[in-house]
């Protein structure tokens, strides 16, 4: 596995920072009522999408979840297109029909976030099957949470991927909370990676550390690319906020939230970069400012983007 260059580390850090700031901005505009419906932010989990997707090209496929903003941003969607879709505007990649919970962008291999827990896992298998069938070297990455591993689709899909030797990496972001329920209530194991053993799929559990995730994901993705079948990577991640934005988290002890926030993958990586003089304070500040400007501009772009006409409602029922 090639070692990460300084440039790659700085880029990865900037992408993690971009996801965090995007989520914070979304919470702000959501609270103002500019975006209707539900949004689910991934603050605390930014390391995983960036570390995994940095090994992928635009032609590799990705399936993800309702908590999917980070995945889409890491897979390469522009801030403007992302925000336009979340605002439900006609120029979003899904014409605004998908919004936060179903965002897709096939130009970047983003098959579509899924509102059904576990719903994206078999779909990811299908993309991996298509790549194998067409004898390309495309890899599919499938993100889901630990809650989804209680679904039948998870087990059916891991077995199918194993039997069919599909070029796929299953990435479980275990943030400890399946909506409002802690892991200890809905399963008796600690490591999701144990579940892969039933399907003869190699698996690894790593912490919420960018470099650790990057290294493990790189090995699994390369294995899939070489035609050596599926793997499962579990990241023991942390969810800082509620299931959805506005969730008061009455089911959660304040200490649990505090302890989750102590594991800040971005602050830790930033510290690593500064201490090892990979990035200067000044360069760091510049990156942060640029990203904050980019996000402001994206929000403004979305606000100015066309609102769909009601006549678009019945378009495209059939091809």
């Amino acid at each position, binding site marked *: 596995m090639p070692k990460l260059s300084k440039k790659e580390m700085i880029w990865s850090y900037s992408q993690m920072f971009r996801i965090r700031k995007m989520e914070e901005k979304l919470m702000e505009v959501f609270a103002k009522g500019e975006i209707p419906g539900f949004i689910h932010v991934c603050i605390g989990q930014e390391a995983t999408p960036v570390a995994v997707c940095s090994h992928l090209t635009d032609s590799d496929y990705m399936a993800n979840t309702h908590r999917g903003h980070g995945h889409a941003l890491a897979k390469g969607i522009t801030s403007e297109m992302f925000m336009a879709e979340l605002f439900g505007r006609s120029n979003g990649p899904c*014409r605004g029909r998908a919004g936060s919970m179903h965002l897709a962008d096939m130009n970047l291999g983003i098959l579509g976030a899924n509102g*059904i827990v576990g719903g994206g896992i078999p*779909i990811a298998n299908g993309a991996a*099957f*298509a*790549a194998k069938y067409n004898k390309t070297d495309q890899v599919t990455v499938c993100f889901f949470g630990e809650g989804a591993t209680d679904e039948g689709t998870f087990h059916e899909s891991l*077995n199918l991927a194993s039997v069919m030797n599909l070029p796929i990496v299953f990435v479980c972001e275990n943030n400890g909370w399946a909506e409002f329920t802690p892991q200890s209530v809905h399963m008796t194991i600690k490591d999701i990676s144990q579940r892969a053993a039933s399907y003869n799929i190699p698996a690894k559990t790593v912490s919420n550390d960018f470099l650790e995730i990057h290294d493990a994901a790189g090995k699994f993705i390369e294995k899939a690319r070489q035609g050596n079948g599926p793997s499962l990577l579990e990241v023991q991640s942390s969810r800082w906020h509620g299931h959805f934005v506005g969730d008061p988290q009455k089911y959660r002890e304040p200490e649990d939230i505090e302890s989750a926030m102590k594991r800040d993958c971005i602050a830790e990586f930033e510290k690593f970069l500064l201490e090892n003089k990979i990035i200067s304070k000044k360069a760091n500040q510049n990156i942060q400012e640029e990203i904050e400007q980019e996000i402001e501009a994206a929000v403004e772009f979305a606000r100015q983007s066309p609102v769909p006409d009601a006549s678009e409602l019945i378009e495209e029922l*059939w091809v």
Partner: protein
Amino acid sequence: MKEIRYIQGVKEAIHEEMEKDKRVVLIGEDVGKPGGAFGASNGLWKQFGSERVIDTPISEAGIVGMAAGAAACGLRPIVEIMFMDFMTVCMDGIVNQIAKMRYMFGSQYSMPIVIRTPGGGGLNAGPQHSQCLEAWFAHIPGLKVVMPSTPYDVKGILKASIRDDNPVIVVENKALHALKGEIPEEDYVVEIGKADIKKTGSDVTVVATSRMVHESLKAATTLSEEGIDIEVIDLISISPWDRETVFNSIAKTNHLVIAHEAVKQCGIGAEIAASVAEEILDELDAPIVRVGAPFVPVPFNLEQAYLPNTQDVISAVKKTLERSL
């Protein structure tokens, strides 16, 4: 022309489309070397290999979801769900994913998927292997639903379905699998969304689906001996359905009977009856009469008492004529 059985029509359609288009793959339980539980893929595995004729674990949700992903990435999967009753264990894939993906994602990709599945009774297979659930799928925007009744229609509409860029549920009736009929030697398709008038008549329009088309044709023979001339429309497509052909027929006969094997409550007959009442009630000279199964599960022992038959169609026709203005 040549004579084949219904199940042979299914196989020929898959075979010919697989030969023509390498993007077409067949996925299902026992579809490979065993040739399918009802023989619909007999010999296909030998010709196309396990890359294109894929035997899967018993994982309907996994299979249907996989078809969705494969279709999104350019393949054209045909999925066999061995019994229509098993559609229940892959409803998320069909209803929340496949039916919505193209619309929801702003037409970034299509969902050219065929799910073919045998429904209906006749094998004494009991409550979990005998249902007609087509109305569920007709209730979902984004799915096309067809249920051909003859070898000619099944071959032609299955070919059309495989070529269609929309997801199509093809419902066969197990009791029809052995039915013989003539088909042309050359390539042909039966258009989705078009009904077929299987027998013209002037007194009563009978709109029938699948096996009930044959029961209605038998009823037509009996009724003609009594001087009653019914028109039998084979709906073939449930969604979208051919309103024009049905409405034109009613304008001629002024009487409507609808016959399907599914339970009468909330069946496709309810939709047709409601549409007729909304659009052309003034064309009717008598109440609409529906023929359908009673509102109970399909029992193992009393299946023949359960299944709607020729006599039920005859009674329905007479009932509407008795109420005629």
